């Protein structure tokens, strides 16, 4: 298994050399997945908060569907987005296929259900915990949600990290809608798939190590922010 040692050497060399192609691929990976996360949070968090508080007919069925969508295979979603964005599809005229935008769309759709379903759970649990107090304070639903989101921010940050993790790690959707075009839509995961296809296993593994390092740095940064703001004491 000399591939492992070779992979670590290659990964170190790649990162230290600041290889411009690698930096470009890393930057695009972060841009696509962070954008997808931003969109997913903007849509998923309010949706989750609403579902946590609201009671209406069919809510349980909706929750089951939402929870099930967390398991949507990226390749299936990629295929659906491809069919929509293809020139032969309903949104073909936009010419978005094989662009980073298409990848952002696919990843947003992939992780919005995750953000919505998990934040629903977080907020609903908190709501149960604080229910008595809310009733005694006669808070409006909006005010109630605001308090719950603030109180649940630590768990909600973890929810966002879960969404980000899913987005940055997936390959099935972006390789279909992005096309893995060099310098245009090639991200870490599709580059890894390509190097594997070339039989360059050590290089593929090295890229994987770089990807895991990035994930580690992102999570570390979030932890540092928490500690810096003293949030951990309340956690």
């Amino acid at each position: 298994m000399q591939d492992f040692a070779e992979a670590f050497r290659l990964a170190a060399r790649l990162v230290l050399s600041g290889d411009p192609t690698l930096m470009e691929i890393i930057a695009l990976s972060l841009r696509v997945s962070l954008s997808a996360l931003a969109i997913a949070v903007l849509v998923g968090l309010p949706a989750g908060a609403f579902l946590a508080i609201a009671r209406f007919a069919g809510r349980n069925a909706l929750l089951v569907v939402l929870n099930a969508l967390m398991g949507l295979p990226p390749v299936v979603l990629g295929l659906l987005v491809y069919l929509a964005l293809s020139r032969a599809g309903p949104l073909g005229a936009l010419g978005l296929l094989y662009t980073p935008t298409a990848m952002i769309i696919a990843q947003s759709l992939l992780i919005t259900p995750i953000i919505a379903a998990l934040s629903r759970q977080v907020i609903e649990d908190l709501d149960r915990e604080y229910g008595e107090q809310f009733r005694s304070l006669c808070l409006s639903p909006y005010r109630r949600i605001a308090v719950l989101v603030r109180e649940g921010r630590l768990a909600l940050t973890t929810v966002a990290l879960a969404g980000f993790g899913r987005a940055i790690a997936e390959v099935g959707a972006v390789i279909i809608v992005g096309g893995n075009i060099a310098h245009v839509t090639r991200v870490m995961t599709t580059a890894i798939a390509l190097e594997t296809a070339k039989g360059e296993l050590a290089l593929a593994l090295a890229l994987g190590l770089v990807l895991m390092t990035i994930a580690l740095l992102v999570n570390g940064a979030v932890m540092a922010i928490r500690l810096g703001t003293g949030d951990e004491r309340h956690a």
Partner: protein
Amino acid sequence: MFPASPRIAALALVVIAAALAGLPGAAPATAGEKPFIILQSTTSTANSGLYDAILPKFTERTGIEVRVVAVGTGQAIKNARNGDGDVLLVHDRAAEERFVAEGWGVARFDVMYNDFVIVGPRSDPAGIRGLKSASAAFARIAEAKAPFASRGDNSGTHKKELRLWKAAHVDPIAASGRWYRETGSGMGATLNAASAMNAYALTDRGTWIAFANRGDLAILVEGDPALFNPYGVILVNPARHPHVKRREGQAFIDWITGPEGQAAIAAYRLKGHQLFFPNARREAKARERK
């Protein structure tokens, strides 16, 4: 109405910054960008490094960038039918001619060729080493029930493989899951699988030469005329798909079938081997003779 919390403000800032970072990419990339075409292509030409070597020359000459989507021939043709590409460069002549006949493509031009080879474990349990006939080799593999890794993905290589089984009077699908193993993936992934299983496989020579994870595999059968592997280039029909970049796409086809592109293909070497042999000019002459 939100309690003024610096943490929430910070979080909001991060989210907004991330959203803004995404915005430049969210706008359709057109204005001020250099012209480009999308080339729906087979994987062998991309994975072997050919495009990296020759496409910059075309871009330098014409200012047109070539964005390569490298997928199996079957998928490339499907994508091109949907209009998701300007030019198609693949290697399944029958399917290419059907593509043009059905009006999806304007015309097919020969570009280059290489050949397929049969690779397998050095121990060669089916005893095919040095056979002159690919179908005879396939018949022996079936007879020995020796593991064979098939693309199984409707690619140009897969179609060629199925024709060879037919010529060998073997129905490999009947043995699917036993000695016949369909990987359903690209050439590289299939070679990775063959390498891990010590299985036989059919591969184009270009991918094989470029392939870095051979394990115990080696070329066992080559040189049969049935293993000829021609590549064709087709402009997607603007009459079917009006957004097709006819001028830029045609410029690419003219270049790759012209003296400069053909010379670039012939000059490409990997590990000292010539991977692709240009044949556009020869075809043009043959057509004149007709």
